[in-house]
């Protein structure tokens, strides 16, 4: 039977560029597991805003990822991301190694409808050296030589994240996590899972409006209680460190990963 998560998952199509949030920023794990169960959307190009964690590791382990643009992927306190590390070593996924502010800059360029954002730093790093899509120019406004890197706009096809709540009009409460808004501004489609849907109109009150991503930018919403588990959700619940460690240990091998995925049902988690 098709439910709300299936409806959301169906927006994601093979080959799409998918923007995903940092591990403390509202990771849509319930939706991620559904994407894996369905297994239809493959060859995904993940854009980590600005780093990735369990979600990225699972999608890679499930064989759905062709490319990862990120500043880092790890399981935080639980250690390295095993399926990610393995896939990079074997060349199974193509890497676009970045640095956090470069990913923010690329999304900002899309938000501002400009082809690039200039960015300081980077010069002389191998991060920059390996990025053929980034371009070093001489600052056209400077009198003396002043090399600067241009980061091309990043236009994700779809942004996915999990948030504490949405209202009936489709407005989503994001609080201080404004990188979630930045993801949505830059993306053609934005899919949001939430802990709950409330009757209050967030936009009607200046206090709640200040932390709201307006419905204007939200394509579809599904309710998913504890939808970030085992990641935490700011202001709502803490990460399940034991579960993250359990995953980290299991996923050291492809078999362990498969076993873990077959036996762990996130949606019915505590």
């Amino acid at each position: 039977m098709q439910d709300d998560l299936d409806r959301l998952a169906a927006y994601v199509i093979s080959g799409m560029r998918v923007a995903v949030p940092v591990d403390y920023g509202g990771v849509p794990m319930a939706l991620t597991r559904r994407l894996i169960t369905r297994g239809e959307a493959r060859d995904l190009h993940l854009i980590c805003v600005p780093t990735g964690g369990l979600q990225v590791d699972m999608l890679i382990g499930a064989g759905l990822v062709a490319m990862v643009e990120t500043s880092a992927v790890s399981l935080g306190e639980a250690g390295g991301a095993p399926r990610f590390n393995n896939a990079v070593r074997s060349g199974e996924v193509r890497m676009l190694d970045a640095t956090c502010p470069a990913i923010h800059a690329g999304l900002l360029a899309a938000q501002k409808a400009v082809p690039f954002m200039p960015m300081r730093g980077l010069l002389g790093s191998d991060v920059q050296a390996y990025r053929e899509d980034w371009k070093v120019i001489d600052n056209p406004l400077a009198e003396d030589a002043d090399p600067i890197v241009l980061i091309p706009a990043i236009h994700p096809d779809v942004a996915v994240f999990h948030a504490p709540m949405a209202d009936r009009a489709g407005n989503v409460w994001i609080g201080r996590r404004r990188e979630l808004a930045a993801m949505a501004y830059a993306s053609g489609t934005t899919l949001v899972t939430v802990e709950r849907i409330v009757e209050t109109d967030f936009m009607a009150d200046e206090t709640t409006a200040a932390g709201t991503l307006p419905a204007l930018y939200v394509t579809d919403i599904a309710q998913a209680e504890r939808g970030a588990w085992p990641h935490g959700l700011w202001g709502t619940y803490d990460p399940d460190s034991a579960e993250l460690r359990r995953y980290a240990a299991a996923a050291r091998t492809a078999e362990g990963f498969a076993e873990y995925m077959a036996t762990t049902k996130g949606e019915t988690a505590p």
Partner: protein
Amino acid sequence: MSTSAIAREILIVSIARLLRGTRHVAVGAASPIPAAGAMLARALAEATDEPRLRISILGSVEHNFFTNGSAELFDCAGQGRIDAFFLGGGQIDGAGNVNLVGVGEYPEMKVRWPGSFGSAYLYFTIPRVILFREEHTPRVMVKSVDFISAPGTSAPDVWRKGGPYALLSGRGLFMFDKDKPGFRLESLHSGQTLAEIRDATGFEFGHDENPPETAPPDAPTLALLRGRVLDELHETYPDFAAGLRAAIHGTEPQEITR
């Protein structure tokens, strides 16, 4: 209870000294020793009428001064509003280059680490970047890093407001000289010899003939660390604070990881 400072406390005190005079220090998420050093620096500054030190701990809710999403740290650094920051490094070389990406030939490296995070930007923008890595072995302190996540120095025409300031390891404290460029051994932690440190370090560094021992804290500083600072630390890093407390009281081995 140990009446003299234990090894971890020497690291914390060293960090507090390196932060002297700063106004705003940012600390990475899982960095209890740098956080403790910053908290000690703040407590010391308050005791001496120096300007109040602001500490941003990434990922912490209590120590968060930002409201504009995860890009704000970088904006704030670019604006010159962050004076000091800490970087680790899977590999660190004598030119101050840092590698957070992996070992071997990129991209299909034989060891892959998480990635460069914000280093390729923050190293250019924050005046006092303190390289902090307890493990001080030839596999960490290398002649030349396999991947430059962030370079230690830049050509003169490159915009650069920040860079390496010091390197603090479990063996000693080095200061960085960007004109040379290179590290100079400032002091050896208690029990270390120059010969040992040389053997453990893949790069050349400057040093006195008989480098001094890293100075232990005076009694008031140690009291501040073991009192207020440990209490503050407990709020954000309960496990680490408990472990440090146990070590001070001699109920666990005092040796730090090398």
